[in-house]
Every structure is written in structure tokens, then in C-alpha cells.
């Protein structure tokens, strides 16, 4: 009951708000915050009570929800991030609408279902609803064609990956897992097991914006900052990482899925870290860093480090939502998100600046903040199960994250330029009080969540725990890298392929979008000019044949009938001639006839 309530409260409230229209705008922010608070309370309650419920859905497939250790961590994180984002959004004038609040709540509700689902069917339902809500939220400013296209990119890219989950569901059934229960998936028979694993991996990598599907996250920056904060922290991209962490037992028996996932994660952590380093737009920098940080979670799943990955997920959720909200606060106040124009932003709004710096320091992996602990938990598992090369790649990714974090902080603490900044939108000049509360709270979490391993146990106990030398090594590397970056400051290069996110989106257009649309055009022409015309040609042929018959055969057939009639008429004329009406002639005719008959009788006998 508690669990149904946890799902129903945000989903129903969100659905009602989203369909209420502009009438509800005035009340929406308050209602949404109250609903989010209630959801958080319910989430904490379920995290303690660990309930499990289920209901019949399809034949042999049930709709199951349950909260275990991993899910408990997730539901609280999701509900907390949602509350923070909604409080923040209440301070932004453009977002005080029922539509925004409704979609955020639906989005959060879908994520809550995703992280508690026990069968693939329910998981897929929530998973796709989340994708649709991300479309609606990214394209929130629907008058702007760029935002709408960004929404399309996000939805279509993630749905491309979702095809994997559909296939995985069918393959699970074919492999003998008729219930589609997540826990039973590893028991699927070969070769279906491999199909299930491939489908799940594709879906998770797409949702998590891992290589090579990272580009949609860059486009998604057209959406409002609170949307980015939610999308990049506890929901959407985190869902992919969560799914992989949840299904680690599925990856292991395939043999190939674990290493593949680990390498994709490590490559994303490193390459997208470099992309982040090259950005001149604060939100783009943070977006690329999201891909990179999620890469660590994916890496953790690949090497079986569930606890480390989960820790990284939670710590990153707090850190990244904080950073996006801070960037959003500056965007509202100063009207820009370009790093060059944000010089002095932290000095002008010191509370935002300090919280941002705490978040960036955590992102950089500086001790003793949360991501430092989390990343080392991931890397310890990598060293144990993935080998030295993978460990080194991960460590390189960690160093890069220190560099881009330091770069962002360096800009915002520089003295403000004398000239007025070039703005993208009308600056409000101030930061609304509602925005500051979530910043401070999230900063506290971003700093302190590193203590989480001390309280977790069971499946979430960090094992292997990072050795002291590993913690020391990563701390030293992070500090040194950050210091070096700080020295170089604005000099950190902006190489073309890196600023353009490795050209991935263009590649997707060339490889997928354009051929599909060309094929569609060609088929449409074929449909009109060949298929439809040939049907019409058949009809015309029938008409022409009818006319030809009418002209030729109809004349001859009709002529035969007419000739027959003429013959009959001639015979009639002939037969009329004896009918003279004169009695003596009839007698003569009768006499002749009898004579002939008599003759006939004689001859025949």
C-alpha cells in the first residue's frame, strides 16, 4: 500500500496538474512542492519498511514493485532531487506553471516506478514515459524551434535505445523467463540470454548518454536549468546506470557484456571528460561532465562493483543537481551561461558561488568530499575485477574531471569584467530566495555523502573497499590537476572536435536520420507512382477492355443475334405464304401432304 501510494501521489498529482491548464498556474508551485515533500516522506518510509507489491498485468506477467537496498537508496535520491528542483523552480518566473510542475512530477513518478520495478514490463513502461516527459520538459519553451528539436533528439535517441528493451522482453520470454522478472533474467537459456543482455545494455547506454549516444544530452541543454538538474542527477541518465547496476547478475554469465559495459563506461568517462574540458558554455561543460560521471557508474556495473556504482550515483546526483541549479540561478540573474561572461558571478552572488564551489570540488574528486570516496570505491572494484588498464583509464577520467571542475570555478571567481556582459536573455539581476534553499541543502549533501559507506551494509557494503594508497593517490592526483588547471585558467584549450561533442550528432544524422528520411521519401514516391498507379492502371485496363469488347465483340455477338432474328423473320415470311385463306388451296396442300406421308409410310416400311 505504501509503495502504491509512493507511485500514485506524484503520478496522479502530475497528471492532474499537467492537464489542468493555465487556470492552475497560480497554485501549481505550492502544490507541486507539497506533493514532492509528501513523496519524499513516502520514499523514506518505504526505504525503511522495504515493501513489495504486485498486481496482474498481462498473461503470466505481473506488475511488480519492490524496494530493496539499491531501490531504497534510489527512491530517496529521486524524491529528494525532485523536491529540490521544484523548490528552486518556484523562484523562476517562467517555470511557475502547472504544465512545468505536472511534467516534473510525472517524470519523477516514472523514475520512481523504474527504480522499484521487479519485472521488465513495468520497468519498460516507466522507462518510456520518462523519455516522453523528458521531451515535454526539454521542449518546455515550445515557441523556440531549437528547444523543440532538442526534445526530439532526446526522445528519439533514447527511444532508439529502448528498442533494445522491447527485444530483451521478447527474448526473455523466448528464453523461458515467462514472468519477465528482473531477478530471473540471468536464468534465460542460451542463446536468448545474450539477446536479453544485448538489449538491456543498448537501452541502458542510450538512456545514460554513453558513447556513442551521448549527443542528446548536449542538445538537452536547451531546456530550463531545473530540468537539466533533474535530468542529469537522479533521473533519466541515472536510470541507465541503475538498470545496469540492478542487472549485474545478467551481465556476468554472458562473458562479454561485463567487459563491454566497463570499457564503454571508462571510454565515456575519459572522452566526455575531455569534451567537458573544452566547453566554453557552463551548461554544456556540466552536461559533458554528466556523461563522464555516469561513465564511472557504468564502469562500476561492468566490473560488478554495485556498491561503488550506487554510491557514485547518489553522490553525483546531489553534486550535479546542485551545480545545474547554481548555473540556472546565474542564468536567471545574469542572463548568460557562457563562462567568459560569467566572470565575477561568484563574487556578485557569494552564496551561490560558495555552494557552486563545494559542488565543483566534489566533482573534482577533492578529499574529503562525496565523489572522492565514491570514485575510489568504483576504481577499487575496477582494479580488482577489470585489470590495471581499465583502472588507469578510469583514473585518467578522474584527473580530467578535476581539470574541468577547476576551470569552471576559476571563471566564476575571476574579477568581474568592466564591460557589460553579453546576455542571452533578460537578466533578472537577483537570485530569488526560493533558489538558495535547495542550493545550501544540496551542497551539504554533496560534501557529506561520502560517509554513506560507513552506514550501508549487505549488498551495498563497499567491497572491495579502496585501499588507503588508492584513496591517497586519487586525492593527490585530483589536487594537483586542479591546481594546474587553476594556474592555466582561461588557457585550457578548446579543440574543435571536443567542443562539438566529437561530431557524434552529425554522425547520427548521416548514418541514421538522413537515410531514413530519404528512404521514407522514396517509398512515398513508390507508393504514389508505382503501387497506386498500377492499381489505377488495372482499373483503366478493365475500362479499356470493356470499351474494346463493346466495339468489337459486342458488335459481332449482337450481329449474330440480329442475323438469327433476320433468318427467323425470313422463315416467318416463307411460312406466311401458304396461308392464303382460300379453302381450295388448303385442300390442294392437304392432298399433297397426305400423298407425301403415304409415300413415306410405304418407303419406310
Amino acid at each position: 500500500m505504501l509503495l502504491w501510494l509512493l507511485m500514485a501521489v506524484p503520478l496522479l498529482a502530475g497528471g492532474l496538474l499537467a492537464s489542468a491548464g493555465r487556470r492552475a498556474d497560480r497554485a501549481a508551485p505550492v502544490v507541486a512542492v507539497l506533493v514532492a515533500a509528501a513523496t519524499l516522506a513516502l520514499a523514506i518510509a518505504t526505504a525503511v519498511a522495504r515493501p513489495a507489491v504486485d498486481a496482474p498485468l498481462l498473461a503470466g506477467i505481473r506488475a511488480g514493485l519492490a524496494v530493496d537496498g539499491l531501490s531504497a537508496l534510489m527512491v530517496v535520491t529521486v524524491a529528494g532531487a525532485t523536491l529540490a528542483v521544484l523548490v528552486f523552480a518556484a523562484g523562476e518566473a517562467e517555470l511557475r506553471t502547472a504544465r512545468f510542475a505536472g511534467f516534473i512530477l510525472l517524470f519523477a513518478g516514472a523514475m520512481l516506478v523504474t527504480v522499484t520495478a521487479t519485472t521488465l514490463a513495468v520497468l519498460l513502461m516507466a522507462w518510456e514515459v520518462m523519455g516522453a516527459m523528458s521531451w515535454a520538459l526539454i521542449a518546455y519553451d515550445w515557441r523556440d524551434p531549437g528547444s523543440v528539436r532538442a526534445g526530439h533528439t532526446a526522445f528519439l535517441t533514447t527511444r532508439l535505445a529502448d528498442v533494445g528493451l522491447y527485444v530483451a522482453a521478447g527474448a526473455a520470454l523466448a528464453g523461458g523467463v515467462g514472468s519477465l522478472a528482473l531477478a530471473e533474467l540471468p536464468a534465460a537459456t542460451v542463446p536468448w540470454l545474450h539477446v536479453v543482455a544485448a538489449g538491456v545494455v543498448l537501452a541502458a547506454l542510450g538512456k545514460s548518454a554513453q558513447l556513442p549516444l551521448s549527443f542528446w544530452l548536449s542538445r538537452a541543454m536547451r531546456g530550463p536549468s531545473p530540468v537539466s538538474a533533474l535530468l542529469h542527477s537522479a533521473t533519466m541518465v541515472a536510470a541507465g546506470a541503475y538498470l545496469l547496476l540492478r542487472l549485474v547478475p545478467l551481465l556476468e554469465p554472458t562473458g562479454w557484456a561485463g567487459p563491454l559495459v566497463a570499457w564503454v563506461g571508462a571510454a565515456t568517462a575519459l572522452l566526455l571528460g575531455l569534451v567537458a574540458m573544452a566547453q566554453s558554455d557552463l551548461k554544456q561543460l556540466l552536461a559533458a561532465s554528466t556523461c563522464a560521471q555516469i561513465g564511472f557508474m557504468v564502469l562500476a556495473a561492468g566490473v560488478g562493483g554495485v556498491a561503488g556504482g550506487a554510491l557514485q550515483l547518489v553522490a553525483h546526483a546531489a553534486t550535479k543537481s546542485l551545480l545545474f541549479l547554481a548555473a540556472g540561478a546565474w542564468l536567471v540573474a545574469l542572463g548568460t551561461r557562457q563562462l567568459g561572461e560569467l566572470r565575477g558571478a561568484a563574487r556578485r552572488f557569494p552564496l551561490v558561488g560558495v555552494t557552486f564551489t563545494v559542488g565543483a570540488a566534489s566533482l573534482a574528486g577533492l578529499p574529503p568530499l562525496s565523489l572522492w570516496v565514491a570514485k575510489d570505491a568504483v576504481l577499487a572494484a575496477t582494479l580488482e575485477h577489470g585489470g590495471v588498464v581499465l583502472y588507469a583509464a578510469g583514473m585518467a577520467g578522474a584527473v580530467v574531471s578535476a581539470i574541468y571542475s577547476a576551470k569552471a570555478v576559476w571563471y566564476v571567481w575571476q574579477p568581474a569584467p568592466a564591460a557589460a556582459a553579453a546576455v542571452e536573455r533578460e537578466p533578472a539581476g537577483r537570485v530569488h530566495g526560493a533558489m538558495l534553499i535547495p542550493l545550501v541543502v544540496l551542497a551539504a549533501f554533496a560534501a557529506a555523502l561520502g560517509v554513506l559507506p560507513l552506514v550501508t551494509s549487505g549488498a551495498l557494503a563497499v567491497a572491495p573497499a579502496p585501499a588507503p594508497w588508492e584513496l591517497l593517490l586519487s586525492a593527490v592526483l585530483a589536487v594537483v590537476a586542479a591546481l594546474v588547471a587553476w594556474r592555466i585558467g582561461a588557457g585550457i584549450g578548446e579543440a574543435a572536435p571536443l567542443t562539438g561533442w566529437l561530431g557524434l550528432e552529425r554522425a547520427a544524422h548521416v548514418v541514421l536520420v538522413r537515410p531514413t528520411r530519404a528512404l521514407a521519401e522514396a517509398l512515398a514516391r513508390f507508393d504514389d507512382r508505382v503501387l497506386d498507379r498500377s492499381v489505377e492502371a488495372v482499373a483503366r485496363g478493365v475500362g479499356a477492355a470493356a470499351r474494346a469488347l463493346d466495339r468489337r465483340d459486342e458488335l459481332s455477338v449482337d450481329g449474330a443475334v440480329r442475323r438469327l432474328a433476320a433468318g427467323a423473320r425470313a422463315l416467318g415470311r416463307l411460312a406466311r405464304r401458304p396461308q392464303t385463306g382460300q379453302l381450295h388451296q388448303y385442300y390442294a396442300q392437304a392432298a399433297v401432304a397426305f400423298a407425301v406421308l403415304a409415300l413415306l409410310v410405304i418407303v419406310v416400311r
Partner: protein
Amino acid sequence: MLSLIVFLPAAVAGALLLVPGRASRTTFIGAWIAVSAADLALVVAVWLGLDPAAGIQFEERTAWIPSAGISYHVGVDGLSLPLVALTVVLFGACALFALRETRRVKSYVTLFLGLQTVSLGLFVALDLILFFLFFDLSIVFMYFIIAGWGHGERGRAAALKFFLYTFLGSLALLLGFILLYLAAEPHTFDIVDLTAANPLAGGGAYAGLALLAIGIGLAVKTPTVPFHTWLPPAHTEAPATGSAILAGILLKMGTYGFVRIAMPILPGSWRQYALVVVLVGVVSVLYGALVALAQTDLKRMIAYTSVNHMGYVILGVGAAGIIAGTDEQARRLATTGAVTQMVAHGLITGALFLLAGVLYDRGRTYDMGAYSGLAARTPLFAGVFAVAAFASLGLPGFAGFIAEFQIFTGSLSSAPVPTAIAVTGILVTAGLFLLALQRVFLGPERVPDAPGTPRPFSDLHASEIAAIVPLLALATVIGVLPRFLLDVIEPASRALVELVAR
């Protein structure tokens, strides 16, 4: 009971013919709404009284032409009742939508009432000749609706094409029925008797020919690629209500024929040629989706998505015929999904066509390029259209997903590669609906130029809301709480799967 449901609309249509044509519009449309409400109440009663596990119920059987083995035989089970319910719901929605119709309302309403009787009759018919009669009459009524209330001269041309093409298909169907009749001993047209007798269990060329004739007849009506080219012009030129009924009900007559006639009466041949059916389904899915993606005319686009959606149904019923290497649960899922898809498509595409009618009513064109940013002027219209579009692209939470997920999941084990290819159809439909939303509703505001004074471009009217929103609400209920529907369909599809496997 069933006869009452079927013939109530026709009886009222007969009574309305006696009312002088100058009576007010609301008399006629009010009568239509009342009939639909009464029919709906009766169907709800049947639904509540139906025991899904007990096969065909509410049977009525009277001798009709006993010398030829033809009887008036009707009844419902879990396969037909959802479609009967869909019919009364969709006709009711069209009746409400028709409140804004002003042209020759008397004949309009009587034609629709006649079509309602014919549609209901087809779904309860248990005799091949009765089925064929309703099948053909539906074409006749729809011909007059398209020709009389469509868009001018092109409307009449499209109506003629529709009539001739689908009539030709129905002749193939009749040929197949006669082949079945001759094969059965004693000769009969009764569907229940034929199913029990399974006269062509041995397979062979004769059975193959019967399946081919029936298959082509139903494929034209469904329609599947390559027999679909009558559909886009018919939809584009038909009035909104006509399009909604054509897509929502008439197309289902084809797919319903597969589950009611082709699969249970010709199980051996169905299994033999199941892979062909699957391939036709997959081609329809992808071809329909891709051609729809290239359209600039909103109504043509929706028409092609129907080809796509019906392709899923064909995929599902085809996969249910592939026995080797599959378990029964998979085949049951595929069959249930196919029937669910019929209902889902009827509700969602019906709503979409009514919405397209709203667009035409305001802007006098279906060309998506003529509009932009309508969300600013008509937020409600934009919102409802967006919901319908997402429902149609198979978003979970709506009925379409429940159907497609079952079809995919159930079909993958029997036809892995075709099904995996068909799944990508959901990506293309997502793309095309997003494009349509973007072109018409988002971005900077623009409406078509009207000669003279600017035409008011109003948001949805009350009658339009009353017609469209319940359809989408029902699609949402099925999407979130599907059990009330699946509890009815599942026992019937289990029985069907067993019939196919015998």
C-alpha cells in the same frame, strides 16, 4: 439481446426516414446520440453478463436459407465483444462530433445509423454469409458517406476507388467462403460448425487456395501492403466522422476476420503459411511507418500510420501460427496483443481523425506546412492532439503500448528477426508524430491565410471535447489498468491458440 443491439440503430434510422427533412438538426443527431447511449448500456450489460471462459454466448440462431446451410446465427465471445464495445463507443463519439454538422443531416444520420447496424452485425455474426452480407453493406454505406459528405469531386473519385477496390476484395472473400462451404460435410456456412469440423485439416492445395482467397479478401480491408492504396485517398477525402469510423471500425473487419474465420477454420494452412503472414505484417509495419513519415498532409499521414498499426496485428496473428520452438504463453500474448491492438487503434486513431477534422474545420486544409505554432492560439486542441499523438506512437500508459508490447514479446520467439525489425517501427512512428506536432502546433504562430476577413481560429468546442476526450480517456484506462479488457480477451485467445495448434 444481440439482435436488439444490432438492429436498434437500423430501426431508429427507419423511423427517422419518416420524419420530414426540415425538422431541426438536433432531432436527428439527438436521436443518434440516444441510440448510441442505449446501445452502450446494452453492451455494458452483455459485458457484465459474459463469462469469458465459456466461449460463445448470447447465441441466437434461426434458419434463414436452410437449403444452402445458411442461418441467422449471432453470438459474442472475448474476441468479438471488445470490438462490439469499441463500435458503440466510437459511433457515440461520432454522434457527438456530428453536432456541428450542417449538411443534409437527415440522410447523414440515417446512413451512419445503418452503418452502425452493419458494423455491429459483422462483429456478432457467426455465419459466413451473414458476415459477408455485413462486410459488403459496410462498403456501400461508407461509399455514400464519403461521396456525399467528402471534399467535393475528389471525394467522389476516392469513394468510387474505395468501393471498387474493397468490393473486389470482398468477392475474393466470397470465393473463399464458398470453398469452405463445399469442403465441409454436410455443407454449411456456419462458423461454429466449420470451426468444430475443421474440414480442411489435411491441408493441401485446396485448403491453400481457400486461405489465399480469404486472406486477400481480408487483407484488402485491413489493409496490408500492397493492398492499401485505396486507404489514403478515402481517408483524405472523407468527412472526419467517416474517417474515424473507416479507420476505427471498418479496418477491424479485416483483422477480425483473421481471428474469427481464417485462423480457427483453416488452422493447418494457417500454420503452413504463418511465416508469410508474419512477413506481410512486418512489411506493412515498416512501409506504413516510413511512407507516413514522408507525408505533408496530416490526414494522409494518419492514414498511413493505420497501415503501420494494422501491420502489428498481422504480425501478432501470424506469429500465433508458428508453433515450432515457441511456448503457448508467447502465442497467447501475441494473439491477445493483436486483439488489444484492434481496440487501441480504434480508440486512438478514431480520436486522431476527429482531431484532423477539427483542424480542417478551422483552416480548410490538411497541409501541415500551412500551420505553425497553433499551441499559442488553441492550447486545448494542441494538448489533446499531443496526447493522441503520444498514444498512437505507443507510449506506455496508453492502450497502444499494452497491445504492441504483447505482440512484440509474444512474436519474438517464433519469428525473431522479423519481429526485431518490426520493433524499429515504433521509432519511426515516434519520429513522424513528433514532426507533425512540431510542424502544426509548436514554433512561431501561423494560420492559413483566409480570403477576406481573417477567420476566427477557435479552440475545441464543447461537443468536440465530449467526442474526443472520452476516447483518449478510455485508451488511458486500458493503458494503465488493462485487466478489465484482458480478462475478457485472454480466455478467448487461449481458445484460439488451441484451435490453431490442433
